[in-house]
């Protein structure tokens, strides 16, 4: 048995398509998760005790169960409640909801980390509640949550591989199939691992770039 990478590279069009689906799911899913998570966090902070409790419960369940099981439930369980979805939309919805649970926690901790005094300073110069949220709370929170948000994006990217289980034609599904057809599992999985790693590295570098730009905003003198 020899390690022959050409077996894989011959299938470049299929691989490119798979990579495209992975990147699409990742980017759309992450953005949807972040937006949904933001509204959950806002609901928990400003929506009263009842809403806070209800959302807390949902987030706890989503964070406390494996993504694999959640995605099975969306895809195979959906038809029981009249929700028959194709693999791709099912996968997108699954990853958005799963990610939203984590993003809501990131944003919630961001809200809590804004010093109370900064809000009080806003009150003292006459800003209304709405102005304080828009001009102080949200910008400061955004700075605080950027590093953990990018980290979460990286984690979500790796979770997209799970969607191969429900036959979403993303990169893991594509390369697994090629590996099986050509009997070249090691080659296929190596290319797969390399692809994810490169994508993670690029994201990480972008993240560090953003963080460097933000250091002048850091809260206290070192």
């Amino acid at each position: 048995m020899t390690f022959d990478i050409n077996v894989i590279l011959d299938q470049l069009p299929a691989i490119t398509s798979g990579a495209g689906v992975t990147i699409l799911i990742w980017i759309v899913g992450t953005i949807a998760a972040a937006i949904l998570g933001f509204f959950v966090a806002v609901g928990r902070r400003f929506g009263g005790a009842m809403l806070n409790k209800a959302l807390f419960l949902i987030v706890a369940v989503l964070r406390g169960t494996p993504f694999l099981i959640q995605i099975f439930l969306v895809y195979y369980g959906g038809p029981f409640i009249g929700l028959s979805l194709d693999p791709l939309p099912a996968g997108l919805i699954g990853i958005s909801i799963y990610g939203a649970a984590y993003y809501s926690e990131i944003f919630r901790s961001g809200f809590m980390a804004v010093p109370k005094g900064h809000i009080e300073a806003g009150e003292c110069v006459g800003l209304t509640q709405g102005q304080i949220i828009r001009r102080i709370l949200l910008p400061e929170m955004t700075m605080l949550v950027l590093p953990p948000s990018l980290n979460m994006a990286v984690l979500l990217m790796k979770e997209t591989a799970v969607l191969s289980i429900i036959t979403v034609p993303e990169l893991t599904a594509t390369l697994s199939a090629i590996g099986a057809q050509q009997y070249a599992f090691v080659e296929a999985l190596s290319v797969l691992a390399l692809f994810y790693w490169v994508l993670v590295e690029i994201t990480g570098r972008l993240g560090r770039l953003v963080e460097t730009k933000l250091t002048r905003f850091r809260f206290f003198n070192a």
Partner: protein
Amino acid sequence: MSLPAIAVRNLVKTFGDTTVLQNIDIEIPQGQVSCLIGPSGSGKSTLLRCMAFLEEATSGTITVNGEVLGFTENAQGMRERIAPAANRAIRAQIGMVFQQFNLWPHMTALGNVSEALKTVHKMSRKDAEERAMAQLVKVGLESRAGHYPSQLSGGQQQRVAIARALALKPKIMLFDEPTSSLDPELTGEVLNVMRDLAAEGMTMVVVSHEIGFAATVGQQIAFLDHGRIVFTGPPQEVFRKPRNARLEQFLDTYLDRGASMLL
């Protein structure tokens, strides 16, 4: 006798079971510097924060230039919250300076000072920044206008915070331990700005451990202990011949450090 800038009547503040302020009565005279001194936990900061409406008094009233802050009495004699907009109008007479500066880290010095002018007073960016710049000149920081808070020293941050409050042309300035998180050198530059302000006749209420400042700039000194005002009077009376045992004990530590020389 003119109307006091702030009149506190029978003020009580409790946090749960703990009474932090008990039946406080004090008048802050117009155009004078009043200093609240006392040991940690005596309630002096809480009293100041009540004047800024950052804490709501449990009972009693605070009147700012004749207007009652925060609450009104209804026909049944019950206390009712007044509308936020009306309360903001009363609070607009007051400027507040915090121990932790509380500058907004995502705005430059100029941005911090001009923010409320733009957002609250709807001034154009140009006019707001012009007025903000004039305030920064006043605290000696025109060269730091484009700096973010993290790029400024503690003393500079506090001077920006003072400029931010002054830009709104308040009638009364409240200072909550403005130099307590600064080293002695930086403390000096902040106290100088405050001295200038006092010389201009600004009504000031200062919570501070800077007994030297209180002795030289203060015109009324109130000594608090365990949530009560133990003694009020001009600095000569307070520092030269303290007639109160607790006050004497409190001042001993400071007078040892040379504050008596200033009198």
